Every structure is written in structure tokens, then in C-alpha cells.
């Protein structure tokens, strides 16, 4: 590249930009394809087929849905608060997309895996993502949307607390917030075994953060029409929808990175592509688990969610935190 006349800095920046765009496109396409994956897997687990007509095994169903949603009227009801109504879907999509910069998808690949605040940025953005739901629900000026937003707030105060605490054990063991360091720290054993309690609680918090069943209280189709996005249509609804799947990919990727060693695996250091394959397999395992949860479990009431969050998950994460701290200190002292 320097032969063309670029300085090494410009070249590095260009390569980083290309990588970022590739990761962004890959993430959005994966999130869109997840709609198909989810419908087929739900079909499999409910003894039916799901979409299998459009294209090979129904793969083009996503394209058909996209065409449909792009051509739908993007209707803004007259009674809504326009500014907040328009901002909410953008917040929903951008926070989860932005948090993906942290994830090292393969050795040397990732937008900003070495960012020193690492996992803190994810926690901050996950907290911001709630604003999408609350703004959407509040600005819609409709009772169902408001109830959805209300539940979302109630849910957030219960999971947000122990979500941060759940990963602190991992941070302690790795000694860094950066995800690349956390991956490197798992060379001699994945964190899922020593941090099993942290894994369980972070998993629960992750489901709640993405508003997925069984913690889809803000949407709760059976009770609240469509919850906080009842008044949305067209592509703004589509953005909420894709944001949910981006969230699923993000939380699955984080679970794989924090607890299953990310791209680590035999031969991954020599061939980065193999590292990406390991990362994808681990991420997809969690995505499938997310879908299986949706296929199997009923939705708790939101007071039950708060009960479980404050009275069970929070003490468990605190115990885990104390145990890990004692362990780390004992090893340093000895």
C-alpha cells in the first residue's frame, strides 16, 4: 500500500475501517438471517416446519420480509411526540451495534477489542439501550406502549445491577477490562468453570437486556399488543426488530468471549480464519440456546423478575465476587 503513496498510519486506519465495515455488515446480515434461523428452529422444536417455501429451505424468506417492510408505509401517528418517537429506534439499533466494537471475532480482528474500558462500555451501552424502549413507549402516547416501557424500567433496575457484578469475576481473574486480554487470559482454561455462577447470572441478565423470551415483558404480545413498539410501523418497527436480534448476537458473542474463550481453540493462533470459525461456533451455540429458551419457557410476571433479580441473582453474584476476590488475593499473596 505504501507504494501507492499512503503513510503507514493512513494504511492502518484504512485497513481498520475496512475491517469495521466488514464486521458491521456481517453483524447486520447475521442478525437479519437470525429471523429465519429462529423461525425454523422454533418450528423444529414445535414439531412443524417454519418458513420453507421461499428459496432454499426458506432462506430467502428474510429477503421477502425485508422487501415487504421497506415498502410499508412508515406511519407516524399524529398523537406521538415526534422527536422521541423518531430517536427511539435509532437508539435501539445503534447501542447494540456500537457495543459490538468490543468483541474480538478472530485473532487480530475486531473493531476495538483492546479498548481499555472494554466491558464497561458494554454495560454503559446496555443501560442506554433501555432508553430506546422507554422513549419509544413514552412518546407513543398509548397505554400498551407505556405499560411496556414501565415494565422495561422495572426489569432494568433488577437485572442491570447484577449484570455488571456478574462479569466482575471474569475481570478480576483476567486483570483487565479489555476483551482481548480476557480472551488471552483463558488460554489455560475457559472461565465458564471457575466462574460458573457468574456465567449463569450474566446469561440471565443478557436475556433480560435483549428483551428476549422468557424476559420479553416489555413486548409481551399476549398482554400488551406489541408492547413498547405497538405504535411503530414500517422500517422503524424493523429497526426495533433487527436491534433485538443484534442484541442476541452481541450477548451471545460476549458470552462466548467472556466465558468460552472467544476465538481460542487448537490452531487458531496460526490461522485466524480457524479462530473465527471457533468464535462463530461458540456464538451460534448461545444463539441456539436463546431460541431454545424462547421455545420452552413461559414468561414470569415482572414482580417475579424483580424478585429473582434482587433476592437470588444479586446475592449469587456477590458470593461469586467475594469468592473470586478471595481466590485471586490468595494466589497473589502466596
Amino acid at each position, binding site marked *: 500500500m505504501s507504494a501507492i503513496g499512503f503513510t503507514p498510519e493512513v494504511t492502518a486506519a484504512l485497513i481498520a475501517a475496512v475491517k469495521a465495515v466488514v464486521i458491521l455488515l456481517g453483524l447486520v446480515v447475521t442478525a437479519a438471517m437470525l429471523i429465519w434461523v429462529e423461525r425454523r428452529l422454533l418450528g423444529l422444536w414445535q414439531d412443524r416446519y417454519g418458513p420453507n417455501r421461499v428459496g432454499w429451505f426458506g432462506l430467502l424468506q428474510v429477503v421477502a420480509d425485508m422487501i415487504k417492510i421497506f415498502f410499508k408505509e412508515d406511519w407516524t401517528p399524529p398523537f406521538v411526540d415526534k422527536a422521541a418517537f423518531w430517536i427511539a429506534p435509532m437508539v435501539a439499533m445503534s447501542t447494540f451495534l456500537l457495543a459490538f466494537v468490543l468483541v474480538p471475532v478472530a485473532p487480530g480482528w475486531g473493531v476495538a477489542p483492546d479498548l481499555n474500558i472494554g466491558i464497561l462500555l458494554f454495560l454503559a451501552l446496555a443501560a442506554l439501550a433501555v432508553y430506546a424502549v422507554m422513549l419509544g413507549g413514552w412518546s407513543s402516547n398509548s397505554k400498551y406502549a407505556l405499560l411496556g416501557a414501565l415494565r422495561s424500567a422495572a426489569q432494568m433496575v433488577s437485572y442491570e445491577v447484577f449484570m455488571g457484578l456478574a462479569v466482575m469475576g471474569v475481570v478480576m481473574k483476567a486483570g483487565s477490562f479489555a476483551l482481548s486480554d480476557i480472551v488471552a487470559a483463558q488460554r489455560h482454561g475457559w472461565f465458564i468453570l471457575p466462574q460458573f455462577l457468574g456465567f449463569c447470572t450474566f446469561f440471565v441478565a443478557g436475556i433480560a437486556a435483549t428483551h428476549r423470551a422468557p424476559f420479553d415483558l416489555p413486548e409481551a404480545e399476549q398482554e400488551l399488543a406489541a408492547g413498547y413498539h405497538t405504535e411503530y410501523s414500517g422500517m422503524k418497527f424493523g429497526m426495533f426488530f433487527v436491534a433485538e436480534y443484534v442484541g442476541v448476537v452481541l450477548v451471545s458473542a460476549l458470552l462466548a468471549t467472556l466465558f468460552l474463550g472467544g476465538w481460542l481453540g487448537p490452531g487458531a493462533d496460526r490461522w485466524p480464519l480457524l479462530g473465527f470459525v471457533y468464535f462463530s461456533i461458540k456464538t451460534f451455540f448461545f444463539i441456539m440456546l436463546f431460541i431454545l429458551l424462547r421455545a420452552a419457557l413461559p414468561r414470569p410476571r415482572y414482580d417475579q423478575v424483580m424478585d429473582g433479580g434482587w433476592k*437470588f441473582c444479586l446475592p449469587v453474584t456477590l458470593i461469586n465476587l467475594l469468592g473470586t476476590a478471595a481466590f485471586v488475593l490468595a494466589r497473589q499473596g502466596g
Partner: protein
Amino acid sequence: MRNFLVQLWAVLVGIYTNLRSLWMIFLHSFRPRDTVQYPDEPVYLPPRYRGRIVLTRDPDGQERCVACNLCAAACPVGCISLQKAQTEDGRWYPEFFRINFSRCIFCGFCEEACPTSAIQLTPDFELCEYDRQNLVYEKEHLLISGPGKDPGYNFYKVAGLAVAGKPKGAARNEAPPVDVKTLLP
């Protein structure tokens, strides 16, 4: 303390039951699917399925319908209309017989009301049309060449009505008409 242990036990049991239902749902991956891929796979319809309505013929190949209007009277949505006519030999038949399938609810009351087994519902639901007017079936669309259900039945062979080739009293299981004049004192 005791209360705490009871609650902890409840939570653990809850976790176990949730994991168990996860596992049970996962086992459905290996079950056959219940869906019938309908347009590709033919769907089985039982013989008594109430689908497309037909008009049948008696074993001699003549129209069974005697245009008595009972089906039209029984029809709850009023989708049947017909007009009685009579042949030279005294048989009744419908001059026209019209069923509007865009109104028909396939309740089968017409079949129950029919005294001659003429109108029958068949196991066929593939009635789609692009033009709504095409759902109005005339007699030529309704009439089939066979007897359908109740194959041996022939109304004029058992009824007391005299038609050409069958005087009064000549029907099956029918006594010859009584000559009332022989009873005069």
C-alpha cells in the same frame, strides 16, 4: 434460617424444572413433524367430509333431484335456488339448479333434508377461483354421472307416484292400489 432454606429449595426446584423443560423441548428435534405439506402432499379427507356439493344420478343414470325445494328451504344462508319442471312422463326435475359457493357454509343441512339422496357433499375443498362469479355453480357443474353415496337407491322405483313405464302400485314393496268400487255394498 428455616424460611431461608425453604425458599432456597423452591428456587433450586424451579431451576431444575426449567432446565428439564428445556431438555424436553430440545428432544423434539428428533421427533417427526406434524405438518402436512399440503400442496405437495395430498391431504387425507374422510369419506364423510363436507366439501363441494354435487347432484347425483340414480342407478339408471337419470337425475335424482325431484325439485322438491327442501334443500333450499333448509339452507341457513340461502345459497341454493332451483325451479321445478316436469317431463312428459311425469317425472319432476329441476329446470335450473344453482348453488352460490361464495355463500355456502358447508353445513350439510341440504344433504340431510334431501328425500332422494340427490344432493350430496363430497371430500373436496379445492374451490378457489379468481373471479367471484365463478363460484356460482349451475346444474351442469353440479351434476355428476354416478350415484355417489347410497348407490342402489332409486326414488321412482320405491315411490308411489305413477310415471311413464310404472303405473300406480308397481313400485318395489308396494301393494296394488285398492279398487274402492269392490268394497261397495
